Every structure is written in structure tokens, then in C-alpha cells.
């Protein structure tokens, strides 16, 4: 189970999703047993937890670690945790971190080497394989983001073995959104809030899909297996069949999340819009606000840029190559002998937005944006990518600086 390839898992999952079992009901308390079952089967379970005033992803051991009764209040440049008036376990939207924290980690040692008779030897870098992980609480937008990173890092000309090893065997437990933040726009990006039920939308298939219900029938989850091993895991805990009323309550919850979305990007002709507006005055407008702090690229679940650092120890006998997250917003990202190509803030912001919404389509066949809204929330000055697209379409409008 641990060693299966990612692609094989996908194909199995899709066919399983089509011939799926009926929906079932899992009591909220039973979720704790599900976590325990995952641990028993050898998974390192990661999920949302409250820390430092935010909901972040970390190792979880039981229901107690989940952010019960917490929600996130989000707006451009604003994030606060607030208490809910119920004990919902997944009653928040998305935090500053995404699953790339685990799949495409921020600091990785690629290899180490030592000098030997004027030449060098790469040292045996076979790290002990870590236990496969289980991600609990994956949103629809996040499934879409994982699929996008799969495309970039596994399905192009070269294959990133680090991402491949971490991605292979990951157990995904999706939780559908029953509320949206004002910063969400997954609906217009076609990535949510419902988790895709089949291959018509290219998201990463989940092993289990949960929807949290808190109606008169009690605090419970509608659950559906998205794969064979999802079904096997579900068999380890107590479930009861779901009624039509349960299914309707879940659908209504997801529909409510969709209807709450106030932001959107119109993706019709978005490539042409960005490619043909290289000199649009709006870029100067956003450049006057952007701090090039790179927060957006750090929180974005699809941004994948990294840099490579070669270091050696004091003796010069031992060298290592490290890979670290990088951002196109940095001064030196585009440096070639003599200077950087993109020195102005304008050029760097334009590069990020054009790549994310337009060039990505030419490169990888889909938009690079999943509409999670993190870049809007975590921008210190509240730059809103959806507003920037509107401004470009309107031709020369000068929005509020």
C-alpha cells in the first residue's frame, strides 16, 4: 500500500469513484476513531490545529487537536480567529498554510558530497522513507491545487523525486466547505466548493469525502469513499447509512458556501487579457501598493518556485546542495550577469499575476489559480487579484490606491 505509484492510485481512484458506495453517516465522535485507524495502519496524520492565532496544519493525534468551535474572519489584508457558537470541527475556511508544506517542502537537502582525490563522491542520500501521511481536512480548492502541482512536478518532461516520494501514498480526507470567506472565489475558478465527483474536473481524487452536518439529527459527517482504500478505511469505523435528508442537508451546505462567494474572476479570454495588456496603466497602480514582500507566493498553494543553494563546511571537504522556496517577487529572482531583468515592482507583480492566470495555461493546460483567496487575505496591503483582473478588463481604470 505504501509503495504504490501516484499514477496508479489515481486511475484506481477514478474508477472507484464512479462505481462508488452509497453515502454513509459518521458521527462526529467517530471521526476520532477514524484518526486512530489511520495511525494503526501506519499513517502520520496531519490536520488543522489552532496555533499562534491561526489555523495551521500540523501532526494531529485525536479530535482534541482539531479547531473545534473556531472560525476564521478573512478580508483583504485581514485574518482573525473568532469563536463560533457551535462546536464545528471544520467550521473555518483556509489558513495561511497549504498542503505544499508537506508535499513540496520549504527546505530540502537534495544531496551531500565529499571531496575525494581531487574529485568528489555523492554520499548515499537514501533517507529512511518517512511514514506515509494522511491529510485531514483538505478543501476542494486544495485538491485542485494538489492536482496542479502534480502536473507541474510529476507530469512534465522531468519528474521531481522529492515531490513524488511525498505524494505517493498520501491518504486524502477531503472536507467540503459549508461556508465561504469573502476572499473565496473557487466557484468562479471551477474548483469548488464541492469536491469533484469524477474526472470531469481535474482535481486530485480524495480517498474520503466528508461534509460536516450539524442539523437536528446531531453533529455528524456525511461521508463517501473516493477510492478502494478509502472504503477500506471507512470499514474500520462505525457508520450508518445516510438518508435522503442527510444528503440534502449536505448539498444545501455546499450550495450555501457557493452562494456566499462575493468575489470572482471571469476567465474568458484571460490569457489574451494579460498577454495584450503588458503596458496597461493598472500595473503602475498596483506597483504603488505592492511591497514585494512575497507573502502571496508563500501562502499560494500552487506557487512552486524554488532556488538551489550550494554550501560547504569550513574545511571545504563536505558540500551540500539545498533546495529552498523562492519567489518571483525577490530582487534577484531574474538576475543574470550584470543585473536583474525585472527590477521594478511593476515588472515583478505583473510577472506573478500573468504567470498565475495566463502563462500557466500555456505551460500546463489549466489556470494556476484555484480561487482559495489566501493571497488576498495575507497581502499586508490587501491587494486583491480578482479586483486587478476587473481593472484590466475595464481598460485604464484607476482604482483606489
Amino acid at each position, binding site marked *: 500500500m505504501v509503495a504504490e505509484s501516484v499514477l496508479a492510485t489515481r486511475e484506481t481512484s477514478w474508477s472507484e469513484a464512479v462505481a462508488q458506495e452509497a453515502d454513509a453517516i459518521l458521527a462526529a465522535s467517530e471521526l476520532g476513531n477514524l484518526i486512530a485507524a489511520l495511525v494503526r495502519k501506519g499513517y502520520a496524520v496531519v490536520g488543522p490545529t489552532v496555533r499562534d492565532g491561526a489555523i495551521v496544519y500540523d501532526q494531529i493525534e485525536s479530535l482534541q487537536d482539531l479547531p473545534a468551535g473556531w472560525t476564521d474572519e478573512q478580508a483583504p489584508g485581514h485574518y482573525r480567529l473568532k469563536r463560533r457558537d457551535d462546536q464545528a470541527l471544520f467550521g473555518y475556511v483556509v489558513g495561511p498554510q497549504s498542503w505544499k508544506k508537506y508535499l513540496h517542502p520549504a527546505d530540502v537537502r537534495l544531496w551531500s558530497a565529499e571531496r575525494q582525490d581531487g574529485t568528489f563522491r555523492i554520499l548515499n542520500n537514501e533517507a529512511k522513507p518517512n511514514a506515509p501521511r494522511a491529510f485531514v481536512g483538505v478543501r476542494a480548492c486544495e485538491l485542485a491545487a494538489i492536482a496542479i502541482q502534480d502536473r507541474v512536478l510529476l507530469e512534465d518532461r522531468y519528474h521531481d523525486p522529492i515531490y513524488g516520494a511525498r505524494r505517493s501514498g498520501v491518504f486524502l480526507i477531503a472536507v467540503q466547505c459549508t461556508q465561504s470567506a469573502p476572499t473565496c472565489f473557487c466557484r468562479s475558478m471551477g474548483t469548488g466548493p464541492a469536491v469533484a465527483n469524477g474526472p470531469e474536473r481535474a482535481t486530485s481524487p480524495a480517498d474520503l469525502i466528508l461534509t460536516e452536518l450539524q442539523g437536528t439529527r446531531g453533529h455528524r459527517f456525511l461521508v463517501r469513499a473516493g477510492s478502494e482504500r478509502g472504503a477500506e478505511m471507512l470499514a474500520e469505523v462505525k457508520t450508518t447509512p445516510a438518508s435522503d435528508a442527510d444528503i440534502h442537508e449536505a448539498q444545501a451546505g455546499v450550495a450555501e458556501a457557493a452562494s456566499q462567494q462575493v468575489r470572482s474572476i471571469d476567465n474568458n479570454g484571460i490569457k489574451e487579457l494579460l498577454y495584450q495588456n503588458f503596458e496597461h496603466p493598472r500595473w503602475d497602480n498596483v506597483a504603488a501598493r505592492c511591497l514585494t514582500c512575497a507573502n502571496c507566493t508563500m501562502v499560494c498553494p500552487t506557487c512552486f518556485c524554488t532556488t538551489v543553494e550550494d554550501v560547504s563546511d569550513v574545511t571545504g571537504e563536505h558540500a551540500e546542495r539545498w533546495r529552498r522556496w523562492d519567489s518571483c517577487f525577490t530582487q534577484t529572482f531574474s538576475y*543574470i550577469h550584470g543585473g536583474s531583468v525585472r527590477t521594478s515592482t511593476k515588472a515583478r507583480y505583473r510577472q506573478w499575476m500573468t504567470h498565475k492566470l495566463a502563462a500557466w495555461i500555456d505551460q500546463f493546460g489549466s489556470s494556476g489559480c484555484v480561487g482559495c483567496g489566501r493571497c488576498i487575505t495575507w497581502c499586508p496591503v490587501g491587494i486583491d487579484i480578482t479586483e486587478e483582473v476587473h481593472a484590466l478588463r475595464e481598460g485604464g481604470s484607476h482604482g483606489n490606491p
Partner: protein
Amino acid sequence: MATAVTTDPMLPRPYLVQAVSKETPDTFTLKLAPEEKANGGSFRPGQFSMLWVFGVGELPISISGNPADHKQLLYTVRSVGQATNALVTQRVGAGVGVRGPYGTGWPMDAARGRDVIVVAGGIGLAPLRPVIYEVLHHREDFGRLVVLYGARSPHDLLYRQELAAWARQRETQVLVTVDYGGMSWRGHVGVVTTLFKYARLKPAQSVAMVCGPEIMMRFVARELISHGLSRNDVYLSMERNMKCAVGFCGHCQYGPHFICKDGPVFPYEKMRPLLEKYEL
């Protein structure tokens, strides 16, 4: 979609320095051969390798040797900073890490049966030298060869003896110019575009391959088009910051193109709308 390469793309192979020869005061050619005696010298003209100096760093360097020689790889490197200086000061027998070869090459197939125009500026002659070798090695497969080469000054000219030898080949014209002549230079003085009026070209049956500073390539491409070449028959070798060379780090993007895997060679038709964009 190409089949994914599954070996670890970030691991360098040790190659040993066979020779280091001086081309100009700041430019040297390294000859490398793989440590394990396997054929490690296969490449297509226009491709590059990532060369790693232990503990210093890694750089993209064009391969500038003969593609018919599969036993070793040649790199002409200009010393402009810490990493390039570390490369050119390697001793014979030292180990250098090599990854690659990477990138699309020059369009040798499209050039078969046609005249080949090579226009090089400065160190840009290094990635074009394999083209010249291949054309001369398979003379019957190509038409006329025209080499237009410009450098800053006479002592910056690369491969001077080879230039003279190439000029003596049949159906081959080699023109050389410098920006600054000094008093003992008896050849052309002026930018490389000034050589066009002396070149004997048949534009309709020509493929042009251009490499040099980006400004130079812009002017040369325009000059070639004004002489009647099609935009799909003029090729440029582009350059941007590179860290991984395998399409993951994102640094080398130029518009929607990854220079490491979609390039570095591109037809001018694709580059024209991008070249005029400042700070792209």
C-alpha cells in the same frame, strides 16, 4: 506530453578536467570527460550542461565542442564572477559535476539541404561552434555556410585559428568584425550588423542561427528579416537566470516559455512579441 525522466535530475555526475586552454585574457575552454569510461559526450548543438564546482556553485554553460566526438565535452567559459572563475581555474584531473545535456538544440534538421547562416556576438560563438563543426563534418547535407562574427576588440576574438581554417573550406564564407579595432587590426571595424552588406546570402534557401547579447540578437534578427529570411527560419538562443535546468525552479521563465526546457533555442517568430517587452 513527453515521458517523464525518472532518474534524479538534480544529481551531478563527476567529470574530470582533461585540459584547460586559454582563448582570450578572460575566456577559457575546459575539456571534460566522464569519470566512468562511459560515453558521456553526447549532445546536440545548442544544448547546455549545468557545471558544478565543489562547494562553490553551479552554472549553465553551453557545450561548444564537436557533436561527433562522444567521449568528451568542451565548454568555453568567460570568467565574470566567483563561480565562473572557479571553473576556469580548475586543474587538470580535478572533478567537476555535470548535469545534462539540457535544452532544445539548434534546428539542424530544418537546416539540412539549405544554406546555414551563423551570426555570433562575443561569447555567443561558443554555442554555435558545434553547428559549424556539424555542417563541415557532413558537408554534403548542407548548402553554403556563412559565419558572421563580431567581438568587442581583436583580443576578444575566440577560436581565431579555426576561423581562418573554416574560411578556407569550400562553399564557406567567414566574416569577422570588432567594435573597437585599435591600430594593429587590419580587419573590419563596426558592429556585426555591418557585415551583412558583404555577406553573400541566398535568403530564400537559408536558415539563420543567432547567439549573442540580447540587443545584438534583436538587431541581427531584424537585419536578417530585411534581407528576406522568414521569421520561422531565424533562430535565437535566449538566456535567463537558471537554477535547476529541469523546469522546476521557475527562474528561467520568459513569457510562457521555460528557457531550460522549451529553449534555449527559439524561432524568431516566437520571440519577436517578447523581445520588445521591457522587463519581461
